[in-house]
């Protein structure tokens, strides 16, 4: 029996101890007519060798393409040590650190993670992570509504230059709580959110302004001006940032005069594989004054009864298992394993290593954009500085172009047709793992497709 260790003798001894004749007798409280049938639609069980062969064949089906898609998930080099250590059974098969004395490994790892993420974002505190960047933005919006005591409405300003999938998840998660998300258009020439576009909201009551850096188009926003504008209008600022970029770009804690209030983002670039979209983790940081409004697990350093330093879950009075219907969120886990991998990744890379990764991503994407834009009819869509993604405009449909490229095993980017109605535009990305050969191969393929 797969994973069930009992011998027939064991079963008999256990049944005798209970005082029943058959295992079936243990289910005598369930009304007989409710009992399940034979589950006929399930296949026969397979051995480890058989399932492995089956899944290996499936995995191979999806291999072989060179990926230039970013759009919120990025292929980076992941040092071998990251997952070798993260999947040790002691991390992999432990649970939420409810018994702190027997969970110091997980607890200290989270404390170190919180420290690294807080330093990277320039913020005071961090939680132990949430599900992903998009749901993290939804949590940040709800948090801002609680934390902004000057605001009497349930309204938040959201630039349309924020990732469309983030905006969608945020809307779908917060909508039942009567939250209104007002979308702010971007500048059509520069692809950024301008303070001018915000002027119409000045003096009005919004709890927060969301600022993405880089924004979905890869463009760099004037974060200082946007942050100061929001604060001058009694709004909190929620920054949505790419963690790799923070090795080079000004951290949200230093935006404008006073820094932002809440930071969220997708942690995947920090050592988590693309893996079809998950498990990733969302990071979430804030100013000290808002920590009691933060959702999710938080770990604190303390001492034990002998005065020895140790780590424990803290501020649990915010959480659902204590506060039930009055909790800050229903979340009761973090993305522990992915967060552990990120902690190891950040330790291995350090500030300099992460800056190298960010620098190569920036340089590679610029090179890719340059090569593609040397093809007749291909141009950069926006006139702005970018980090490691660029929107390019094609002389024909982006959807059709991407399909033709995929047939050549090149995943050329992400079409802007569905979310923005830019039928000929797509978002491209070349991280540090893309080689010059691959970039040239892409340029040649695109030239063929457009010819």
């Amino acid at each position, binding site marked *: *029996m797969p*994973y069930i260790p009992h011998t027939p003798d064991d079963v008999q001894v*256990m049944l005798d101890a*209970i005082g029943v004749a058959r295992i079936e007798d*243990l*289910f*005598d409280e369930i009304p007989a007519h409710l009992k399940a049938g034979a*589950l006929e639609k399930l*296949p026969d069980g397979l051995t480890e060798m058989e*399932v492995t062969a089956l*899944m290996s064949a499936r*995995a191979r*089906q*999806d291999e072989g393409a060179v990926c230039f*898609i970013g759009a*919120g998930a990025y292929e980076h080099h992941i040092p071998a*040590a990251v997952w070798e250590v993260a999947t040790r059974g*002691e*991390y992999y*098969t432990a*649970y939420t650190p409810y*018994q702190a004395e027997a969970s*110091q*490994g997980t607890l200290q790892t989270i*404390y170190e993670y919180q420290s*690294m993420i807080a*330093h990277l974002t320039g913020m005071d505190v961090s939680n*132990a992570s949430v599900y992903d960047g998009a749901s993290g933005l939804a949590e940040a919006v709800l948090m801002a509504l609680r934390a902004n005591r000057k605001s009497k409405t349930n309204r938040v300003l959201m630039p349309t230059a924020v990732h469309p*999938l*983030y905006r969608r*998840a945020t*809307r779908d998660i917060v909508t*039942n709580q009567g939250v209104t998300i007002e979308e702010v258009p971007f500048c059509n020439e520069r692809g950024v959110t301008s303070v001018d576009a915000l002027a119409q909201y000045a003096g009005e009551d919004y709890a927060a302004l969301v600022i993405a850096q880089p924004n979905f188009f890869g463009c760099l926003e004037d974060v200082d001006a946007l942050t100061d504008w929001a604060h001058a209008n009694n709004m909190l600022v929620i920054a949505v940032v790419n963690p790799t970029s923070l090795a*080079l*770009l000004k*951290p949200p804690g230093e935006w404008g005069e006073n820094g932002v209030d809440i930071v969220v983002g997708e942690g995947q670039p920090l050592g988590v594989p693309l*893996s*079809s979209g*998950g*498990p990733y*983790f969302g990071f979430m940081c804030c100013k000290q004054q808002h920590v009691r409004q933060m959702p999710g697990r938080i770990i*604190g*350093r*303390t001492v034990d009864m002998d005065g*020895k*330093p140790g780590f424990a879950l803290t501020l649990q009075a915010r959480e659902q298992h204590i506060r039930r*219907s009055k909790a800050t969120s*229903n979340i009761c886990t*973090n*993305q522990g394993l992915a967060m*552990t991998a990120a902690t190891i990744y950040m*330790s*291995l890379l*350090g*500030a300099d290593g992460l800056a*190298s990764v960010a620098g*190569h991503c920036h*340089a590679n994407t610029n090179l890719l954009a340059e090569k593609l834009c040397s093809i007749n009819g291909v141009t950069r869509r926006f006139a702005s*500085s970018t980090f490691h993604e660029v929107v390019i405009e094609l002389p024909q449909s982006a959807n059709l172009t991407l399909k033709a490229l995929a047939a050549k095993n090149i*995943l050329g980017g992400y079409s802007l047709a569905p979310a923005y109605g830019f039928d000929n535009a797509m978002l491209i990305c070349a991280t540090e793992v893309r080689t010059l050969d691959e970039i040239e191969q892409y340029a040649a393929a695109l030239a063929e497709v457009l010819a």
Partner: protein
Amino acid sequence: MNREAQLIFDVSKAGRRAFSQAPKPVADDKLSDLPAGLRRQSKPMLPEVSELQVVRHYTNLSSKNFAIDKQFYPLGSCTMKYNPRGANRAAMLPGFLKRHPLAPESHSQGYLACLFELQEFLKEVTGMKGVSLTPMAGAQGEFAGVAMIRAYHEARNDHARTEILVPEAAHGTNPATAVMCGYKVREVPVNNNGDVDLEALKAACGPQTAGLMMTNPSTCGVFERQIEAIAKAVHESGGLLYYDGANLNAILGKVRPGDMGFDVIHMNLHKTFATPHGGGGPGAGPVGVSERLKPFLPTPIVGQDGDSYRWLSDADLPQTIGHLSAFMGNAGVLLRAYYYARALGREGMLRVGEYSSLAANYMLKRLQQVGYTAAYPERRASHEFIITLAKESKAFDVSAMDVAKRLLDYNQHAPTTYFPLLVPECLLIEPTETETKEALDEFIDAMAKILEEARENPELVKGAPYSQPVRRLDDVRAARELNLVWKPA
């Protein structure tokens, strides 16, 4: 510096690096187009350490954890069963790991096939008519479920339904979820046998009832025998019935939520389908629905056209409650669950409920024999059961928490403590089907010894644990003198 609590920052030294893990630095001129005003002025304080230091530090840290791979871990309501290593290897195959979440369907057929089949398997084992795999944890599955209940009522223009009912023994996530979906919460009492107080429930049902959230077997570790009457009462009032799948392991293969009358359920694949708990996540909380809730399922969902698979879009599901994450939820967890489902197959699936219930009932009986008090002695245990230390707490001043801590000294992970809240001084114990009888007996022996210690030397139990890296921690100080982030001295 106390070496035992040494942080990675404590071993950091300026100028040290794990050189080969990062690419070589880029030339400054490649960065010159980044506006100076948007550049970072000072480096983030990340550790400066060698590869060996990192590996050694996190390996040593990991060894301070209890884990299923090391210890019996009978944490009630958490289903800490064996996590097959084969599942991990399969989910980490390069073709799966390197697949971009926005890759075209032409380059995703292998992955989509696994997910489509998993959807079908989950429908079959739960008796539900539609499944969406996307929620990233049980709590997000709950959110999706209650959001669908709300969408259903709203689609019928029934705006009077403002209340979600939950039994008082429910997980804290249930009321927290109802509030996140814009509902008020009304708690329903549970009687002395662990069943819902049916009359109180009937009285609570009305035109304001959007639905009832419940777990069955309940958080009291017993099967709710009146489930059909409960379903009838809720349905007659126009409300829907939500199944919290926390305890699905108990009835896998024995009785299906769909057959019990539930309209919507979530499953915890990190419990029932043996995916790892990872120190607190990631999990996966797929939702299943009855026919009438199918239009509202969260996307993405995998559909099948002839021989190929595709993502169902908004055009296929115009009434969907939408997306709960940027992409496809915890895709890698779903692959591990798929592996588990294929390894077990039909006959294996039928055994899960049987053998997890056998282990729990055996332990309950044996613990009663050594002197512990069952919270519901007249009832069968499901896959878990509750003992109450109310008596011992009075007689020896030894609490459930003390016993839990002392168990750590016997190299046994503690059961869930003080949940459900309505049973005083309780331990909720769930052995799972993957533990040997010898492992169960060792735990029972440890519990017998602790009871003896409580009688003869209660101070010993109250001071536990003694064998762990730290003793009991000062939670008050942790909350009052918040230290959440390391800063250089």
